[in-house]
């Protein structure tokens, strides 16, 4: 009965009800987008960092992995030390350097990763064969490089190390065979990356890269207390930066505080618009039907029923509007994500808007509570209208 009364009233004014529904839907879409934005990139980043099972990163103190050109010295000794730490099952050094590939008489700049093939967490092999320990004749190509060079498995490439302007010649060059095609997990879109064994990159990069690494990925044993492993590593290597995935996400969050604050402000505005829209519509409806409500009260309909009718009317706007808004919001989230993920240098695997059941539930519940609250003042007014006076003033 409560539902049908409220529904009938909404249907009696199709234009304003339709507009209110549309308004709620757009506000709900904006709210959903902002809920997704508020923590989406952090979850996406965390998922990416844990995708290969390495829970800890060791990098030069005061820097984040690959955030600067700073590198770690005595990499071999540090890796051995980390591997001997209780609870650590794997430690994989990675060195990033700029190299070039000879192609059609020109030099194509490349991002080269030097890795330990037995402990790497930066790529996934998609085709061909992985590198082996001590391999100095093979290279793994990312798709953008393979595309630009037109290279296939088994092709030979000439890689050129640091260029020396004084003698107008490369300091060193090597011929390598393409053994595999890989997907680099942390690369930006179209980043021209290749992977070689660590000693190869150290050698090609020049004397300043001998025995150096940009970052060391550390995997703790299943069931081991990662916190205890990190504490132990920090004690053993006080001059290195030891960060858990949680630490990195927290630092990332600091840098992206703007998006969190923006999502909070715009989400709040969306809620305010919903409250004003639903509240105004219900207030006017109650005003128009005050005589009818007073009659209902006079024949014995309880205050609770009147309140429930008004609140139900609010929910009849908020629930369908919210459902419509969720679909609208998911569509606009894809559009906004496409814009934001075009940030230069951002890993292609990262997304700003991550739609997970939890986020959808939060947005839906927030909207529902908002709709309920918006209906309370007009419902209160309807339930407490003086019956006799209202009937008198409404009498023809």
């Amino acid at each position: 009965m409560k539902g049908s009364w409220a529904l009938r009233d909404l249907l009696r004014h199709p234009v304003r009800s339709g507009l209110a529904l549309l308004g709620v839907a757009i506000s709900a879409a904006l709210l959903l987008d902002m809920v997704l934005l508020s923590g989406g990139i952090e979850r996406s980043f965390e998922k990416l960092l844990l995708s290969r099972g390495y829970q800890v990163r060791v990098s030069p103190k005061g820097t984040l992995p690959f955030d600067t050109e700073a590198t770690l010295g005595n990499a071999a000794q540090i890796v051995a030390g980390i591997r001997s730490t209780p609870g650590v099952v794997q430690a994989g050094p990675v060195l990033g350097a700029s190299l070039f590939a000879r192609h059609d008489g020109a030099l194509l700049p490349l991002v080269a990763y030097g890795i330990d093939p037995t402990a790497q967490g930066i790529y996934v092999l998609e085709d061909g064969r992985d590198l082996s320990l001590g391999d100095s004749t093979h290279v793994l190509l990312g798709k953008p490089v393979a595309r630009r060079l037109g290279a296939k498995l088994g092709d030979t490439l000439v890689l050129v190390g640091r260029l020396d302007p004084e003698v107008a010649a490369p300091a060193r060059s090597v011929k390598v065979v393409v053994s595999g095609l890989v997907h680099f997990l942390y690369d930006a879109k179209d980043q021209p990356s290749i992977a070689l064994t660590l000693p190869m990159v150290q050698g090609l990069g020049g004397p300043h890269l001998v025995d150096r690494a940009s970052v060391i990925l550390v995997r703790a044993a299943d069931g081991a207390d990662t916190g205890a492993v990190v504490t132990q590593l920090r004690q053993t290597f006080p001059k290195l930066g030891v960060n858990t995935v949680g630490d990195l996400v927290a630092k990332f969050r600091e840098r992206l505080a703007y998006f969190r604050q923006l999502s909070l402000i715009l989400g709040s505005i969306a809620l305010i618009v919903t409250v004003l829209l639903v509240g105004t519509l219900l207030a006017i409806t109650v005003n128009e039907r005050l005589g009818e409500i007073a009659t209902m009260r006079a024949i014995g309909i309880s205050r609770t029923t009147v309140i429930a009718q008004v609140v139900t009317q609010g929910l009849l706007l908020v629930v369908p509007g919210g459902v419509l808004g969720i679909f609208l919001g998911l569509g606009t989230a894809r559009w906004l994500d496409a814009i934001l993920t075009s940030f230069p240098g951002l890993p292609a695997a990262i997304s700003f808007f991550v739609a997970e059941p939890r986020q959808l539930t939060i947005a839906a519940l927030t909207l529902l509570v908002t709709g309920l609250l918006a209906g309370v003042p007009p419902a209160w007014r309807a339930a407490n209208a003086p019956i006799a006076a209202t009937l008198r003033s409404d009498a023809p």
Partner: protein
Amino acid sequence: MNRFLLALLICAPLPLRAQLLEIAVERRFADDAKVHIGDTVWIAASADAPEHAARVVAVTEPAADPATIMRRDYRVRLHLPDLAAILGQPDRVDRFGVGLEPGVDPDSAAERLNRVAFGYQVFRSSEIASQSSTTFLVVSRFHRAIAIISILASAVFLLCLMVLKVEERRLDVAVLRFTGISRRTVFRSLLLEAMVVAVAGALLGTGIAAVASAIVNWYYQRTFSTALIFSLLQWRTILFAVVLSIVLGLGAGSLAAWRLVRTPPLTLWRRAG
């Protein structure tokens, strides 16, 4: 290159020596680390590298740069040979700035230098500006997209409110029509009312925007210790918002008023009752 030194500054009292390096630190670092001109700091290329004593000879205020504001890195300046020596890379630089003689075309100069280049690449200043502004272009596109959604939501909100507002006047309109006032006059009066509401709303909105903009600037300038302007309320933005509000308000008002004046007065009277 300066970034190698970031976060590696260690403040310590040390008696002045003639061979101390000279360093200029940015004001934010000086404030945070309580360092003053004449103090000595220890610097190193990395945490495990040898430390060098340097005397603070200047406190600088770096040019406000939105590209680096979120990084919160501290910036210091050293004489080039000192920094190269600390980094163990003597006679090396990251980049040169090249000044051209008046009349020389930067495009052709860059092209000629790139032809003979080995181990370096020449960029025009405009190219660098274009590359470094990519981030802001993305943010700007994002803001524009959000603005489109906001305008859409506002338009629907305004339309809905105008419909409600005009419909509330059913009884008045019925009475006016009964007394012989023409449809056109009623329509105009409703439209005038819609315009007054839209103008008042737009002015109030402009005031709220000005206050919000001031709060945003105050908060972020304090947070990031910078003079950058984060929210810029320009006259053309205000004009756009006001004109849009009035157009939307008039559009919505005329739509609702048109529906109302088309309805027979008796029907309006009955509905209002």
